[in-house]
């Protein structure tokens, strides 16, 4: 077969068919359009301001590795003036996270970014290995998910950063839309397609890869020869997400626009005010000061269950009632240190970074 020429430059040989557009493009044009689309996503949403300190949630996996690379590239190319940090959470999973953290440490050197690693052990006094040895593999993802979310915020706070970017890509978001629809989780359905989420006074979270297809992220990592880690967590994978993922990949194989279409569907839902009204107001956890919709935040509830040997207390209402019936938390209960929001670090002008490249 004769080589096809790039649909953009009409010069070099095409190496990739873009899932979004069906265009056949060459390597250099692919790098350029991929990076430029992420830049457009960032600027159209007005995500960053010059002088912002931004933490990149880095797992060592493909998405966050590509994100760190692209953030650095764009920051240099457009002279954005962002201060970038790598923030990794060490869940304490031997043979999985310890290996992936080695990748992050190499990324720190390769991208010349400061790295902060915060472990479950230092924050909660429990590693995932120890949690699983106590509670088994069932429900352990609940602990890990709740603990990671709070650990990221606390790590950001330690870095005096009030904005975290994560590598969630278009495929991840489409999966989450499907899962929230199947679970009837209206509150999360409304939130999961937002490019930037921020509670009352919480740390901002953004997804610059919201519109980036997984295929292109993996191809970008491959052609740039980026160093990333790809092993499944050794504890039970999120089975429900796994089904959504396989279903989505099947849809994508039949029609590549399915991913963007599903994100669009998620964005197009309008939630009635009376439904919104049933959602709980945010408050501050009375024990650790973290954002919470109850008196105690989810992490404190889970930790109390672990410490008192009734780990299910944070999972089911019935187990929680049983825990409460045993009396109040003992005085010497291990708790999470008080949470403090970072003082606003941005001193630069407050206009978002513009679309223009410097002349």
């Amino acid at each position, binding site marked *: 077969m004769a080589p096809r020429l790039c649909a953009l430059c009409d010069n070099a040989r095409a*190496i*990739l068919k873009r899932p979004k557009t069906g265009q056949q493009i060459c390597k250099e044009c692919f790098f350029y359009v991929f990076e430029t689309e992420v830049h457009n996503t960032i600027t159209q949403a007005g995500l960053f301001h010059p002088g912002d300190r931004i933490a990149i949630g880095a*797992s060592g996996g*493909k998405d966050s590795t590509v994100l760190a690379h692209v953030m650095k590239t764009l920051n240099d190319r457009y002279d954005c003036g962002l201060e970038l940090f790598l923030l990794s959470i060490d869940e304490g999973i031997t043979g999985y996270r310890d290996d992936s953290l080695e990748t992050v440490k190499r990324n720190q050197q390769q991208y010349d970014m400061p790295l902060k690693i915060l472990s479950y052990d230092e924050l909660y006094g429990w590693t995932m290995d120890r949690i699983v040895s106590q509670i088994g593999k069932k429900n352990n993802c609940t602990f890990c998910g709740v603990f990671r979310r709070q650990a990221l915020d606390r790590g950001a706070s330690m870095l005096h950063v009030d904005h975290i970017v994560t590598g969630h890509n278009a495929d991840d978001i489409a999966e989450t839309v499907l899962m929230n629809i199947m679970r009837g989780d209206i509150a999360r359905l409304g939130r999961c397609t937002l490019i930037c989420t921020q509670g009352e006074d919480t740390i901002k979270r953004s997804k610059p890869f919201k519109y980036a297809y997984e295929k292109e992220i*993996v191809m970008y990592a*491959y052609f740039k020869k980026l160093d990333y880690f*790809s092993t499944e967590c050794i504890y039970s994978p999120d089975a429900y997400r796994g089904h959504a993922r*396989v279903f989505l990949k*099947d849809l994508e*194989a039949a029609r590549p626009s399915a991913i963007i279409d599903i994100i669009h569907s998620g964005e197009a839902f309008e939630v009635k005010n009376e439904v919104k009204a049933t959602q709980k107001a945010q408050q501050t956890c009375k024990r650790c000061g973290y954002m919470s919709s109850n008196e105690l935040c989810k992490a404190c509830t889970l930790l109390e269950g672990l410490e008192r040997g009734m780990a299910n207390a944070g999972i089911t209402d019935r187990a929680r009632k049983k825990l409460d019936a045993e009396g109040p938390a003992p005085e010497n209960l291990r708790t999470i240190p008080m949470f403090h929001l970072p003082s606003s670090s941005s001193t630069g002008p407050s206009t978002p970074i513009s679309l223009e490249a410097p002349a």
Partner: protein
Amino acid sequence: MSLSLKIEFGGGLELLFSNQRSHKVTIPSRMPSGQGSENERPVDLKYLIFWLKDNLLKERVELFIENETVRPGILVLVNDTDWELEGEGEYQLQDGDEIVFISTLHGG
């Protein structure tokens, strides 16, 4: 007659293949035919996928093959070009080809 190929697995797919990323394989250059030797067609990428399943894959075939092709979410490159530009399973293999399989299904 046979073809020598370089096979690479990435993105976690190597776990199904003895946890080894790079393999050199030699495969027949013509499709085996039950009806004598005439009309034997040159081997294509689809043939290779099944050859790898039969000769190199160590575990969990369902994570590699689905509906007569690679499982959705596995990217394939032929000499560093997306196989979607090369006719996918119908691509006719050449001696010395480098074929890369990358799973996108592992965590980010």
